[in-house]
């Protein structure tokens, strides 16, 4: 089963005559376990596509099936349920400043009240070990470097065993070497755990981690739509 299956996806911002189309009838499939990079200039609609797949925006037209759930016409509860099965990595890590690294990772697990507190923290510590900053488990984000913060964010995105990981410009706030290291780490963990990864990026230096590169321009996919 494909992790993502999109057909005829069209999206506009605004209403009526002033509506500005950003996506024009996209068709796209991402197979489970694939690491896909989405590139393209600013304003090409990459981020809009990412927010639609992540259930952060309502689908206006066309079909968008994520992890087996159709998001076209889906209500807020359905989209919330999809978000819980997706791991997000943001441009600016977006860690909660008042929580320690392990508490931040555990937040991804608190959505699932079935786990005990001990199990949550154990898994959080294991995830931080896996991203190589186990010794920073009790540090607050403000005391971590940019690369360390992004590693915590990766641990958080992976903690809940998501069916899909969505990353938006994950290397934008990092220097070239750190950015590449972090993405290599993400790719390695994704492959080990057989996770699907969908990365929006400008950064040509991380193209080597992708199984496939999709290029967008002006709301159209111009390259790599199908595996």
């Amino acid at each position: 089963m494909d992790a993502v299956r999109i057909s005829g996806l069209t999206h506009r911002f605004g209403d009526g005559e002033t509506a500005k189309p950003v996506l024009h009838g996209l068709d796209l499939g991402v197979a489970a376990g694939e690491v896909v990079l989405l590139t393209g200039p600013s304003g090409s609609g990459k981020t809009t596509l990412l927010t639609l797949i992540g259930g952060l925006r309502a689908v206006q037209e066309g079909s968008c099936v994520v992890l087996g759930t159709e998001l076209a016409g889906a209500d807020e509860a359905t989209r919330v349920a999809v978000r819980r099965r997706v791991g997000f990595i943001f441009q600016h890590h977006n860690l909660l400043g008042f929580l320690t690294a392990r508490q931040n990772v555990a937040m991804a697990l608190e959505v699932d009240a079935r786990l005990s507190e001990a199990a949550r923290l154990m898994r959080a510590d294991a995830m931080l070990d896996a991203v190589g900053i186990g010794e920073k488990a009790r540090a607050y984000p403000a005391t971590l470097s940019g690369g360390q913060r992004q590693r915590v964010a990766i641990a958080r995105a992976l903690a809940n065993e998501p069916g899909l990981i969505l990353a938006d410009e994950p290397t934008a706030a990092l220097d070239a070497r750190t950015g590449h290291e972090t993405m290599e780490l993400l790719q390695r963990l994704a492959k080990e755990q057989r996770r699907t990864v969908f990365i929006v990026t400008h950064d040509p230096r991380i193209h080597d981690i992708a199984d496939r590169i999709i290029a967008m321009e002006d709301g159209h996919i111009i390259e790599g739509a199908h595996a």
Partner: protein
Amino acid sequence: MALAGGPGPHRGKPRWDPSGGGALSVFLAFRLAWRQLRHEKSRLAAAISGVVFACLLIFMQLGFMTALFESAVQIQKSLNADLFLMHSTTEALWRSTPFPRARLAQALALPEVERVAPIYVQNVVWRNPETSLKRTLLLFGVDPTSGVVGFPGLTADGLAAITKPDVILFDARAKPEFGAVPSWLAVGPVVSELGNRRAEVAGLFEIGATFGSEGNALTSEANFWRFVPNHSPAQVNVGAIVLRAGADAAAAQAALRRILPDDVMVLTKPGLIAFEKNYWANTAPVGFIFGLGVVIGLIVGCVIVYQILFSDISRHIGEYATLKAMGYTNGYLVRVVMGEALILAVLGYIPGWILGLGLYELASAQIFIPLTMTVEKSIGVFALIFGMCVISGLLAIRKLKDANPADMF
């Protein structure tokens, strides 16, 4: 790796809504609220002091209000009779209109009435023998053998002494401006002027300052007329009626109302107490003023807590949006904000209560108005503070709408 095992929460749709309700989810939301609050100690301290301030304001207003009501009826509570007559235009004891003494004689016509006793009341100027400062106290004139005046601390010797000319009993808890009468009395006779006439203090009783008078004195009827020469003996301020044992006060009250002209009102003892309290609560705007003070305290507290919560949400809007992107519902975030509000309520109330108790002690010692911390008052104020924080939280959560996860990219 080790993480690959175990039940994957992503497999299949969630069968329940973990952030939609349940005690555990509420606990987790409150824990997040607490972690957020505690992370910035100075902001937390500012927020708590806002609640403490509101708490203290309310405690003081309520304390004065209850003290007002309690002190205002101390005298009424210590009168030993079943029914009372007062002029129908009387609003409060300290400014009562006298009525004809003949009404008491008329009341004796009722078979249930055992005996009657007149009580004379008048504001009279007392000269402090040490400073010569003149202050007004409330002088009571009664027949000392009637037994209707049961002021705390009265002795048989004292009641016997006021039958002698120009002898009075003095309120040991009157304001200090009247002079340190109790300590002077312990070493020798105390003589001063009452209503421009020489008066000798022969003993003490304990009433204390009320909102109607700063001090009190008690003497016999004959002495009363000498200290207050323009007060006609035929005009009585309060008529005390003692019923025969076993008589029904309410029935006797109804019967007296029928036989007495309507220039007097007939009150039971609880009725007399309620009448006086009602004057201070409603006719004198004192009750309203204190009530207004409570409302202002609540509004100030509300504004402070709302400001704190609102700016907290604004500063954490990105973090809240991130939580939404991670699959937390808006309801979960509402619980986090309400959790903050309730934590602030509890953390502010505890020091507020302790400081309130301290201020009550201070007020009782310094201004001689006994403020008491009761269980009812403690619970009542907590309920007000709790409600205040809930309202602030409900106002602040509107800001959560701005946390839109789609804007995080």
